[in-house]
């Protein structure tokens, strides 16, 4: 599904990614771990198409399409979803309106008519129930005045509504208490299907108690330096990132 080859990228002339290689197949859950400042978020941004990053070499192929040639919104319409580490507040725009706009723009991209209001509402009810979200959350403005936990749940709710092919969750577990963590993880697990994939970017092993990855990668100094099975996350937790460094 996603094939990243020798990807290097810089921001303001500073090289952050230094030849990343990553293969994600449909049905898989990948975890990308690593200490702070090694390029985890940059990798997520470059895949999603954030402005300001310059790709200096390599390619990102997603379902046969060269992502680097597409705008941010086109990538989203192709099925990329980024769950933000710091979701942005948009006062004055309700989650309902925001999601409906997003969904209809994605449908338009695929040559579909806008979603009928009734269908949209029942879909929203269904997903809210699935994620155990409070009713009133969706009437509020996007992320405005939300607690950290509410913001992250809202990210998962958007993911549930937009049904992406590939979801990249950037530090979705940061700042969450155990209950919120469980809800977020349950959402991710319930949304898992044979035809979609998830990349979880995380700092700690904790989230991986709830979301069991097929592959764990360690990103260090702009490169994926080690990949392995889920047991590697435990080993990392135990031995720390110094262990990785010593192996380099």
């Amino acid at each position, binding site marked *: 599904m996603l094939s990243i080859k020798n990807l290097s990228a810089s921001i303001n002339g500073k090289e952050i990614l230094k030849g990343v290689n990553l293969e994600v197949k449909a049905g898989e859950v990948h975890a990308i771990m690593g200490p702070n400042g090694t390029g985890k978020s940059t990798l997520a941004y470059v895949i*999603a*198409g*954030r*402005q*300001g990053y310059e790709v200096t070499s390599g390619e990102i192929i997603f379902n046969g399409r060269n992502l680097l040639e597409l*705008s*941010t*919104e086109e*990538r*989203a*319409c192709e099925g990329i*979803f*980024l769950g*933000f580490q710091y*979701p*942005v*507040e*948009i*006062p*004055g*725009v309700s989650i309902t309106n*925001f*999601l409906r*706009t*997003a*969904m209809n*723009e*994605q449908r338009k*991209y695929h040559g579909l008519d806008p979603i009928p209001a009734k269908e949209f509402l029942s879909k929203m009810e269904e997903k809210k129930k699935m994620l155990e979200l409070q009713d009133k959350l969706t009437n509020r*403005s996007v992320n405005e005045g939300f607690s950290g936990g509410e913001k992250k749940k809202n990210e998962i709710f*958007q993911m549930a509504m*937009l049904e992406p092919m590939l979801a990249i969750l950037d530090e979705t577990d940061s700042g969450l208490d155990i209950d919120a963590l469980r809800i977020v993880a349950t959402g991710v697990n319930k949304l898992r299907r044979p035809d979609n994939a998830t990349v979880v970017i995380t700092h700690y092993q904790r989230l991986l108690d709830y979301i069991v990855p097929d592959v764990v990668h360690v990103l260090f100094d702009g490169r994926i330096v080690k990949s392995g099975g889920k047991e590697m996350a435990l080993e990392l937790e135990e031995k720390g990132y110094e262990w990785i460094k010593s192996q380099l």
Partner: protein
Amino acid sequence: MEHIQIETDLKSSLESIFTEKSPTLFSKDTPYVAGVRKQAFDKFAQLGFPTARQERWRGTDLSKSLAPDYEFIMEAPGENVDIEKIFQCEVPHFETFLVAQLNGWYVYRNSPLTVLPSGVVIGSLAKAFEQYPDLIKQHYGKYTEQSAEGLIALNTAFAQDGIFIYVPDNVTVPDVIQMVNIVDFDRNLMLQARNLVIVGKNSHLRLVQCDDSINHKVTFINSVSEVFLDKDSSLDHYKLQNKDEHSTLINSLYFYQESGSSLSSNAISLNGGIIRNNTTVKLAGEHSSANIYGVYLMDRNQHIDNQVFIDHMVPNCQSSEMFKGILDDHASGVFNGHVMVRKDAQHTNAYQSNKNILLTDKATVDTKPFLEIYADDVKCSHGATVGQLDGDAMFYIRSRGISEANAQILLMYAFAAEVVNKISIPELRQRIDDMVKKRLRGELSYCDQCVLHCSTQEKKVSFEIDVTKI
């Protein structure tokens, strides 16, 4: 109908018109009104038109607006103009009591002054001069008289008609009163519109003031409204400005508030050549409050100027100002928020905020918060920002599949919504919300009004004027 052509030297020709024509033009003046007029004329002769050299006019240059030859319409258009033929309110389920001014003159069907069963009087100011001399003496010209503005003096010197609203004590006016100011004239027109609103003790009024134009000629509207709010009364006031680019609109509002009264005034400026809103609030009675809001969306070469002066004269009053604007292309904006807290006005609570988004590097805004505080136990805050659309927010929205253009609209809409959401009449809020969305999509033209029926746009709008009445 008598039209007076004004020569290029506007000030001296206005002076000679006044001197020569006063006896005939203002023949119906009561001694009180005549006195106010004469005094204002002398003041205008002394002050003249404002120039960019004056501090209060530094950001708004009227020299181009004052350059063309203008005409004055010195006689009423006559009675029995069918308002429904001209206007149709597009706001669904919006029951309003509609009063209209055509080229500055009150337009009426049956009677120049309507007296409702509750005792509320709505109608022509010219008629009120004659019929309610005591109320006029008590209020007319009282709230503007300290003004050092040449334009206020000019208006008072030449004002002949406008809208008069009187709400007696203890009346809650059920209908929203909608004041529509229409300009339809085939030559350049300068007009002095004058309104007087009196809200009695413990009475409540909702007022929507719309400034519209039909023609494409150059117009200069110098509108002055005086509003008196008696004890424990309230006024919910809206100003909707959607004008063509040839127009200059100077809209001066003077609010005078007695104790316990509350005012909310919201200026929504969507289009216009030059718009200047002067809002003066005198908090003269304790525990009175004023919320002054504004939102402006300007593009091309449009210019918007909001001047707010809030005078905390006594203790325990509250005022709040929030103005938000988006300026595109070469548009320019000015905000000047002056809050005065007098020596004895302890426990004043004053808040002020002006936020701007500039979409291009050619758009400009000049914002100046100005707090003048002479009391020591007060809470005052102010803030002004000028910026671009937030890059993080743009990325967030686009990462959901929303196009760059729509993401921009969404953010601009969200920015304006903070002010629009303060509109407490649901039907009006809905409509203005729609207009703002349309405006942001670039689909709102000046003839797309809340009150004008769009389908009549192609037809030449005709007013049935009875010439014999003139």
